């Protein structure tokens, strides 16, 4: 079954501390993974795609197929990073259509 698991509902850190938001997935095909961010009462925005291997706002994420993980990391958290973070998996179904399956989300709270 296709599934995305984000084990932490809330991650609370102090400014300047390292951050790691965990994401594990279950998918039988070739996975494509994303991190989305939702700032307070705003739309979801794409933060990272694993195929891009880029760093956005200091965040990075590496796909580890052996551990089926796609953890989001940042070495030094900033207060403006406080938001809801969703890990998502693109899953392909019969008929050729795709959909995004989201994890339950992790709220990151960065304190001064």
């Amino acid at each position, binding site marked *: 079954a296709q599934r995305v698991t984000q084990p932490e509902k809330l991650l609370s850190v102090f400014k300047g501390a390292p951050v790691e938001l965990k994401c594990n997935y279950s998918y039988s095909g070739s996975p494509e993974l994303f991190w989305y961010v939702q700032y307070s009462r705003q*739309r979801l925005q794409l933060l990272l795609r694993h195929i891009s291997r880029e760093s956005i706002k200091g965040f990075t994420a590496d796909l580890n197929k052996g551990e089926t993980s796609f953890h989001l990391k940042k070495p030094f958290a900033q207060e403006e990073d406080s938001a809801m973070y969703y890990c998502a998996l693109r899953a392909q179904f019969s008929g050729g259509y795709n959909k995004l399956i*989201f994890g339950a989300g992790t709220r990151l709270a960065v304190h001064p």
Partner: protein
Amino acid sequence: DTAVSQTPKYLVTQMGNDKSIKCEQNLGHDTMYWYKQDSKKFLKIMFSYNNKELIINETVPNRFSPKSPDKAHLNLHINSLELGDSAVYFCASSQDFQRFSGNTIYFGEGSWLTVV
């Protein structure tokens, strides 16, 4: 120049009423979606349309009926609203549903529905 726009942004209504949320995208995308974010912030797909044709219909009560008059619009109509329908509803679009890989999905700002 908003890519995906939804109206209304906030809606408070009584149980039993019928309401609609409208969505429009100006990206020229073929595929549009409705997602529901519940009170626990869990985000789940409800429907997907490609070129006005329904392609994904998750287990959603029949009281929810999407309508796509053209590929740039996907409206969500909800009959006989219940307390449990209170949520944030996000519209989204993507270029198409088959060559999804490598594309991104663009979300609207959400519509906060409160049923009292």
